């Protein structure tokens, strides 16, 4: 197993256009992590750079501190599971699992032993003689995963949207299996997906990407509570963060009738360019009391999610969403008051987080 580092990695397929830009990321040994972002954001490119299927135009790839840019995928000992399950369709499961070992010239006795061990883990022992072509998509994906973990000297497993073509009821099972293998072998796993739910449930460390840039790396909690870019806030969470364009008004950042008082040291950092205010729907405090403080708004629509209500609110020159308890007796056309708690309200300048500063949230 290995620690993976990307140092100033950029890649362009066509000169002048970067698919990924200035990526600096570290995956510690045995970490289960995810790369999350919309389609075309460069996640798959990044994965190919790590596995060695692509050479980055700029920057270095390090495995355990060693520069491996020139090493071929085979020599990097990295396994990859693809979006569409890849099996060797003329071979049975046994021979599929044995394939990477035989390619490396392992003696047949060890091959047999390893295949049995992995098949046991994947619960495929009964099917070893079954032709790989006759398997379901989920089973095929399991076999291609098995071809990865069967190598003892494996550095990492990269998973490129591995559950896309899997039936919903099998997704959960397969994900559990993945997690199991990750813990059993302490494999460094990097899981690429555009599905926040998959990323947040699978990984301890999630990196959010957009347009070729790594925006933020952190635990699922970090990404939720303290998105460092508006995109992270918007992309993660359902519904995503409310984002308002804002302007600077002396020491206040203002959006509609909402004002955010900047604390003294922030004032110097603010230049007023491209200011945005963000607040998650679940952090908006809603009150129905007539005399309470806050922004007066009208409920435009109410969406039921089963466990909570999502309100579409209009008022104070803003349109936003709030999440309230399912039991709250709020209906469309009601007038309510909304409060944006200071410690939960994010101020962005040029799409980077300004406030709240880190200490406040730790308090």
């Amino acid at each position, binding site marked *: 197993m290995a620690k993976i580092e990307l140092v100033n990695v950029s890649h362009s397929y066509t000169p002048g256009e970067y698919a990924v830009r200035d990526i600096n990321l570290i995956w510690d040994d045995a970490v289960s992590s995810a790369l999350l972002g919309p389609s075309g954001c460069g996640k798959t490119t990044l994965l*190919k750079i790590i*596995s060695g*299927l692509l050479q980055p135009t700029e920057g270095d790839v390090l495995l355990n501190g060693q520069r491996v840019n020139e090493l*071929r*995928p*085979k020599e990097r000992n*990295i*396994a*990859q599971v*693809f*979006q*569409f399950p*890849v099996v*060797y*369709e*003329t*071979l*049975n499961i*046994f*021979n599929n699992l*044995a*394939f*990477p070992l035989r*390619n*490396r010239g392992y003696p047949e006795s060890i091959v*047999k032993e390893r*295949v049995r061990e992995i098949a046991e883990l994947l619960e495929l022992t009964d099917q*070893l*003689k079954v*032709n790989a*072509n006759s398997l379901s998509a989920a089973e095929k994906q399991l076999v*291609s995963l098995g*071809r990865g973990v069967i190598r003892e000297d494996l550095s990492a497993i990269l998973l490129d949207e591995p559950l896309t073509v899997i039936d919903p009821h099998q997704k959960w099972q397969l994900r559990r299996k993945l997690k199991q293998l990750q813990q059993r072998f302490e494999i460094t796993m990097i899981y690429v997906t555009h599905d926040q739910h998959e990323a947040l449930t699978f990984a301890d460390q999630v990196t959010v990407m957009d347009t070729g840039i790594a925006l933020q790396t952190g635990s699922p909690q970090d990404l939720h509570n303290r998105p460092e870019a508006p995109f992270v806030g918007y992309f993660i969470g359902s519904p995503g963060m409310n984002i308002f364009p804002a302007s600077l008004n002396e020491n206040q950042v203002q959006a509609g009738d909402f004002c955010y008082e900047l604390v003294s040291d922030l004032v110097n950092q603010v230049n007023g360019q491209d200011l945005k205010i963000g607040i998650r729907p679940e952090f908006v405090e809603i009150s129905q009391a007539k005399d309470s403080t806050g922004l007066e708004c009208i409920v435009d629509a109410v969406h039921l999610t089963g466990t909570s209500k999502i309100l579409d609110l209009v008022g104070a020159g803003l349109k936003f969403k709030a999440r309230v308890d399912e039991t709250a007796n709020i209906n469309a056309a009601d007038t309510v008051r909304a409060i944006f708690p200071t410690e939960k309200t994010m101020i962005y300048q040029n799409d980077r987080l300004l406030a709240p500063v880190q200490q406040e949230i730790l308090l």
Partner: protein
Amino acid sequence: MKIRDNKAWFFVLPALLVMGINAFVPFITVINYSVLDIFRGLPAIWVGLENYQVVLGDNLFRGAVVRQVQFSFLILLIQIPLGVAIALALPKKGWTATASLVALGFPLLIPYNIVGIIWRVFTRADLGLVPLIFNFFGYEYNLAQNSVDAYWTVVAMDVWHWTSLVVLLAYAGLNAIPDAYYQAAEIDGASPWRTFLYVTLPRLRSVLTIAVLLRFMDSFRIYTEVFLLTGGGPGTSTTFLSDVLVRKAVISFDIGYSAAMSLIYFYFILIISYIFFLVLTSIGTGDSNQPPSG
């Protein structure tokens, strides 16, 4: 929906009519001829299976069958691997890919009789390029008198004429293989040969099945090019089944014999093609490769 009262049958009618005129009627006519002895001006005589016995006992026919089977298998053995190899070597994209494909398409566009004439000129003892080259290397090539030369020239001509078809099919098949398969094989550490064996070849199975069937059926019916190049000779060294058939039907006007032979010929192609189909579609789908022993 009732099948009987369905007005949709009217839509099928024109197709049935065309097929009837062009396939069923001639087929049944041939069956009819094959059990009769027909002389011009006289009533036909019922002879049962006698025509079939004559055909099967005829040395000209037997010789042609052996020659034909040999020929078809030989050209498959050459054209399929060669076609795949060329397809693998072709550029994947850009103008060179287009140019190669167009160039490869040329032999397929040339009418059969022109192909025969081209090769005839090619191999002429007095001015042909082929004898010239062979003579240069000290081999006395003679299409008209040496049956080995004639046979291999026919093989070469067919390879020249038809390998492109295999290339085009294989090329299309190759382009349809997702990159992920190759990437997975690379990550699994497979050598180029093992990648070819376990990724490329299985994925080409369906197009190669089509290529084998087309090439088999077509080569089994070879006539025009050979007729123009060698006329079936020297001796009977390049006399294939269709040549025998034409001689009997058109030159000797032996209708009963020809009809019986046509049907035998037809079933021959049908049965061998079916066997090919069965074999090619089942290869590698069982557990035949290196079963986990012990």
